[in-house]
């Protein structure tokens, strides 16, 4: 009987330590933003840097059945006196090839996606060398995704990650690092 008790108590302590470690790690990730994917990938704008870094391109991206429709793009520029300017850059940044949208950015450029849906739930998903973005978009609620463009030029595909009907897997486009 007594030799039973020991194992169970040891397990209980081990369990508490593991839970505390995991929770602590997770909590620090949430609060300090030490994890890029989480700090910059949250909906509801939590963790998006305020103010946005100089040069950030903001893409207003609508999810429809079944395509990504980048509707507008602006770039944040700060004047020497600190005034924030939002420069319209849609025609430079947004382009279409074979019917799929391309977002043109420079290496390491900060990017903020403002994501919304005109009908069903979608999710914005992109795999970058320094971590993925994965954000659900609920109709009627704006979601946000902030990240730095990869340093290596090339095309990086963004997809829909939440099943949204039969065209779900053809809902994609490209981040084009020039």
């Amino acid at each position, binding site marked *: 009987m007594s030799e*039973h008790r020991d194992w*169970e108590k040891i397990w209980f302590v081990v*369990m508490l330590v593991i839970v505390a470690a995991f929770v602590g790690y997770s909590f620090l990730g949430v609060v300090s933003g030490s994890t890029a994917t989480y700090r910059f990938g949250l909906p*509801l704008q939590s963790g998006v840097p305020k103010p946005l870094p100089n040069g950030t391109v903001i893409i207003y991206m609508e999810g429809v059945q079944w395509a990504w429709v980048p509707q507008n793009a602006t770039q944040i520029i700060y004047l020497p006196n600190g005034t924030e300017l939002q420069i319209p850059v849609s025609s430079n940044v947004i382009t279409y090839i074979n019917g799929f949208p391309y977002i043109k950015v420079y290496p390491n450029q900060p990017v903020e996606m403002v994501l919304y849906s005109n009908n069903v739930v979608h999710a914005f998903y992109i795999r970058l060398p320094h971590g*993925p973005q994965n954000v*659900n978009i609920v109709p009627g609620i704006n979601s946000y995704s902030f990240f730095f463009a990869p340093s290596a030029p090339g095309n990086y595909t963004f997809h829909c990650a939440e099943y949204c009907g039969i065209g779900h*897997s*053809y809902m994609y486009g490209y981040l084009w690092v020039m």
Partner: protein
Amino acid sequence: MKAYPRTTLGVALLYTAGGLAWLAAMGIAALWFRTILLSPHVNQAAGYAIAPLYYFLVTFHGQAAMMMIVEDISLSIFAFSLYKSNMSAQHFKLLTLSFFLINLPMIVTFAGGPTTGWYMYPPLSLQLGSWLYFGSFPAAIASKLVGLAYFMMFLNAIGTILASITLFVDGYKTRPREGKIPVFAAYGMAFGGALIFITEFALAAGELWYVLYFWASVPVNPLTWVVLFWFWGHPVVYYAPFAVFGGLYYYIPKFAGRALYSEKWARYNIVLLFTFSMLAWVHHLQTWPLPTVLRAFITPTTLILAAGSGLTVLNLGLTIATGKGYQWKNPIGLSALIALIGFILAGLQALILPINPLNVIVHNTYYVVGHFHLMIWTIIVVGYVSILLDMLASKMNGASLSSLGAGMVSGGVIMWTIGALLLGYTMSIAGYEGLIRRWVAYPVKFLSYMDWMTMFAMIMGASFVMYGLPVLLTLLGVKTSAFWETSGITGVSSTGGGPGVMASGTENRSVDHVNKPN
């Protein structure tokens, strides 16, 4: 097996039959859509042509599993746990009625051709176009029909609630007059009974909301609906495995040749698992626009739940380690052992999931798909096989499997588990590499992963036939002499009459020769 059973064992067998029938159908659907996935459908026209069939099969696969098979086998285990514990079902008419409520109405739903996915998020699932057949009617009729499809799902949920409450009440009424309810039945009461009838209401409410949307123009708020849905959608994954835990607590000591290492902890664990299984549901929504505090909340609740599962593993592992040599050559003992090992291997995959910063890496990818399928294939399917074999032995009046029967079951279960581990981990690796679930078209770099997955799924399909055949034929009462040693036992065992003729409380428990743990 009788369509209107009047014994506790008969109830267990009836629910088993329902579960197995849908299991076969959903397995065929899975193999079918795996063959569809052998092409990456780079060509959009081809992809759009096959997509409706693919998404119907995926939806059918998921809904048959989550809304019928899980409930059937959890309730079957619950009924059998009562039988093994000298407790019994009493309201046979109600239990039979609820069985048919669970298993029949959704045939109408499937006839409507849903392509909503099993978790049927709004507003996608409210679009008439998501219903291949019902949606093809003029809008006014189509919306009535889709409303009917959801009403039939509502009836399925009502059947589940009815069955779990009835068995719970019957179990409570027939509990031992002295002492505690045995652990097996206690797990049945908690997870085949109370957990089901508490959480299944969330599903019923969500479905009724959809019905009212179509029949009474009640608006549906997507975020609220989704949070409501997962209050069922998460606990439902515990109905079967936690009921199986009760079985493992019963069988593993029996084959380890000693009493359960710590019965006290097995009982404490009921409280832990019961409470926290209802506090973890938002972990399905970590990438959703919900308050950060809510997303942070589920990390500890999910991990405490995982620790409770770990406690089960430790308790059973120590029982085996300190026993008199585990009898793994017995198919029941072997299945129980494999279920336990599989549960550990599938559980390890899940450890990163409740951690917020890591979850986003794999959310909605095959990583998660690989994890939960591996859970289903081991702790649920193989664990259930071990309980089912004893159930069938009881049906056969305490006979034991012939060498042919034992060989088919043991060989089949081993082959099944090898296929399951290969398939589960392949899925998870592909998911970690970025393969999103529910893509009928996918980047070509995943083609070889898909090929291997289909190959491993075929191994599983073949081994399912191998161990399923003796089970199915025994259930139907066909060719049983090939699979069971009945010498010396001719129809009626020494400990009582055959099932179906006994009053409650005195049913035949011929294979129940385990020592009650103290």
